[in-house]
């Protein structure tokens, strides 16, 4: 039942107090009284919370009672609440596009807290703009599109793996794209994980195998997504497969080639400690457990005819004729989980990192602790290969610092550095550990207890950010810091300094955000659709985020987000269809066929029909930006819901206070 009647607008205006959020600043009754005087307005109503059940019922009652065909809601922001009121209108028989949302909270009462009079005046102006626009709104239909039942997951760290597994278990085909030659992400590099100190790879390894075994998951390792086209339900993705120079079907991961490779490269998996060959297996638990040759470091790239790996491989798996390949896949949903990196102190030489041998990062320390690491679990220092007796751990390096990165790593780094101190202290109780901190953030279950344990076993906490680290001739280091609890400056000599580096965006985040158009927050990480209620959604239909790429997270949090993103994505995959906005472009017969809009359209949604000499819009491709409408010199191209007359109605009523 559509209540649209030609030529007769019956508008209802609903002013929300939003508790005191609006009502405490704006005189809502005054706004409503004013609205009642505007042409076309047949009823007004003020509610304490218009979005509540009773508030929405009030709108629907008014719609029925006054036979409304336009609804103006003056409340918070359409960014969060427009969908709510659209449904409310539809239910009562008013097309959802006949709703006009006026923002008198985020952009009025909250903006002018101390200027009640100004805010009220402004609210009236805004409502008037809305009413005049509402008069000219037209009903539109959303179109329905089918959702492809495949999913794409970018990044196979613990969050991405969890998302892929959940979707795979639900029976959806998943393309799991990982840039590195093995899945596993950051967690595969950790020795032990807080607060239980269980062995990281021992719990992750089986999960990685499970992912590989899941018949619905197609792992694309050593590959990168380079282009994404399309829209929710219908993404077309181009994936670049880097050549491994190893036939993945023949290789067994025996690592014979690695043993024979004459090249020595710093071992990236061990944070640059130790060496690997140009031919190597990423790490013993790698999935897929296959060798890879990095041609950049291979002697062949220098034109030498080395055949060491070819000779070593019994199965003849080495294949230098491989080239970069591209493949195209289709997916209905995309889950983005590229993870994070830790702050690199090298360029600024923070605390002498990069200058002094015995200053390392906590991630490097982690590899030293690991039994499978470069030193088989013995923590030694670089200058003399001795086991340090006194260690200084410095927290918040490259975080909470206006010089580098003001953001906090959300407690992850506190726990991370503390854990490493505990691990070594428990192994070698005779050592002394100092931990320099500004504040300890131990927010979740078991974390506070973990902190207490650190104190109990004798780790000494010094509250204060060290000003500098000074190297002595024997390689020892003096940490200079103000102990802000005692109010004294302390110079503590240690043998090894470990920097607790903060979490910063992965270099891929920028690329992915540009490719998919996911907005980023001030910290450079992905921005979620809503910080509280949409933590794994993005503003883009069908695109979800999980893990450290949308804010620092510990492992349980990342896993939960992986599952969360999977279930959000599954809603679309299960129903197999979704609605897309009715706000698209439309041309009329006054078109002169100049074609200016065709060039301006970012999507190629417009075509010039030579015969008719008129531009046509391909609805499914058009995303409704309105650039064409603004380009059209004769006003033949319009953007639905933002037609010239509709926007102009607002503009004309901007200030004139009657």
């Amino acid at each position, binding site marked *: 039942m559509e209540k649209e009647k030609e030529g007769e607008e019956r508008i209802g205006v609903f002013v929300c107090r939003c508790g005191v959020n609006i009502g405490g600043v704006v005189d809502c009754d005054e706004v409503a009284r004013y609205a009642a005087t505007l*042409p076309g307005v047949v009823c007004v109503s003020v509610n304490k919370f218009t979005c509540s059940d009773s508030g929405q019922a009030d709108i629907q009652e008014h719609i029925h009672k006054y036979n409304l065909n336009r609804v103006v809601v003056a409340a918070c*922001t*359409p*960014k969060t609440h427009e969908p709510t009121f659209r449904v409310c209108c539809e239910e009562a028989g008013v097309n959802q596009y006949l709703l006009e949302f006026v*923002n008198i*909270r*985020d*952009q*009025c009462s*909250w*903006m*002018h*807290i*101390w*200027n009640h009079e*100004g*805010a009220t*005046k*402004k609210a009236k*102006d*805004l409502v*008037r*703009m809305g009413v*005049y626009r509402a*008069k000219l709104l037209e009903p539109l239909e959303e179109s329905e599109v089918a959702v492809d039942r495949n999913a794409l997951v970018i990044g196979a760290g613990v969050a991405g793996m969890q998302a892929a597994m959940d979707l795979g278990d639900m029976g959806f085909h998943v393309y799991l794209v990982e840039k590195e030659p093995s899945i596993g992400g950051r967690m595969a590099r950790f020795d032990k994980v807080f607060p239980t100190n269980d062995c990281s790879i021992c719990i992750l390894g089986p999960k990685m195998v499970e992912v590989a075994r899941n018949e619905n998951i197609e792992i694309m390792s050593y590959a990168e997504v380079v282009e994404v086209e399309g829209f929710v339900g219908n993404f077309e993705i181009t994936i670049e497969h880097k050549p491994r120079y190893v036939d993945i079907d023949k290789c067994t991961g025996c690592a014979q080639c690695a043993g024979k490779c004459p090249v020595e490269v710093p071992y990236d998996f061990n944070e640059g400690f130790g060496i690997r060959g140009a031919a190597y297996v990423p790490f013993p638990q790698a999935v897929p457990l296959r060798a890879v040759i990095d041609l950049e470091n291979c002697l062949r790239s220098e034109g030498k005819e080395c055949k060491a790996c070819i000779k070593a491989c019994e199965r003849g798996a080495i294949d230098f004729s491989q080239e970069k390949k591209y493949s195209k896949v289709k997916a209905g949903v995309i889950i983005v989980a590229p993870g994070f990196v830790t702050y690199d102190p090298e360029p600024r030489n923070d605390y002498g990192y990069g200058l002094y041998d015995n200053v390392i990062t906590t991630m490097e320390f982690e590899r030293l602790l690991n039994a499978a690491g470069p030193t088989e679990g013995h923590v030694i220092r670089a200058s003399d290969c001795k086991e340090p007796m006194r260690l200084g751990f410095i927290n918040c390096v490259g975080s909470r610092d206006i010089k580098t990165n003001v953001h906090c790593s959300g407690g992850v780094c506190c726990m991370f550095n503390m854990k490493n101190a505990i691990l070594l202290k428990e192994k070698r109780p005779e050592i002394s550990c100092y931990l320099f901190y500004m504040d300890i953030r131990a927010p979740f279950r078991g974390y506070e207890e973990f902190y207490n344990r650190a104190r109990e076993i004798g780790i000494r906490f010094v509250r204060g950010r060290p000003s500098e680290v000074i190297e002595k001739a024997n390689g020892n280091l003096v940490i200079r810091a103000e102990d802000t609890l005692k109010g004294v400056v302390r110079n503590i000599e240690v043998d090894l300094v470990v920097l607790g580096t903060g979490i910063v965006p992965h270099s891929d985040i920028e690329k992915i*955000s*540009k490719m998919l*158009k996911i*907005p*980023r*927050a*001030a910290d450079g990480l992905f*921005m979620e659709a809503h910080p509280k209620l949409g933590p794994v959604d993005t*503003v883009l239909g069908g695109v979800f985020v999980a893990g450290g790429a949308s804010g620092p997270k510990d492992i349980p949090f990342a896993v939960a987000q992986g599952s969360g993103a999977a279930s959000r994505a599954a809603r679309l995959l299960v129903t197999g269809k979704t609605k897309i906005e009715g*706000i698209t472009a439309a041309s009329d017969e006054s078109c002169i066929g100049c074609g200016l809009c065709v060039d*301006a359209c*970012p*999507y190629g949604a417009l075509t010039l029909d030579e015969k008719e000499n008129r531009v046509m819009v391909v609805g499914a491709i058009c*995303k*409704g*930006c*309105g*650039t064409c*409408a*603004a*380009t059209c010199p004769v006003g033949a191209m319009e*953007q639905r819901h*933002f037609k*010239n007359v509709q*926007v*102009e109605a*607002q*503009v*004309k*009523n*901007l*200030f*004139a*206070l*009657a």
Partner: protein
Amino acid sequence: MGAEQFDQTYPKFEPRIVVFCCNWCSYAGADLAGVSRYQYPPGVRIVRVMCSGRVEPVFIFDAFKNGADGVIVAGCHPGECHYVSGNLNAERRVENTRKALEYLGLGAERLRLEWISASEGMKFAEVMREFTEEIKELGPSPVKSRVDVKNPKS
């Protein structure tokens, strides 16, 4: 009708600023300014469009005709437009419109293009405050005294 009419409504000169905000970045940035309570003067009015690329010169002229002292077109940072390149179209259009304003004697300074992302609530408020101050210096728009703003509104 003269400028006095405005003086009744706004006794001291409170610049009237119109901001065309794209839905995805700048409008969300304006919301964030609100959520964070970064204050700016109430003379600022926001008109939402889906993309800054939608803003035509006519809208801008209309805004001046209807009492604006200054206009801002706000969109996503280059490369971040929700619709790929709508903001670049906006950039060109604003540049041309500024020339036209200069020619018409309103002054190019009364029109600005700003890139404000969804996370830049602080920037949004700062730009509004700063622009308001700038327009205060410039004084009321010369168009105002010639248009009867009380009347035809539809």
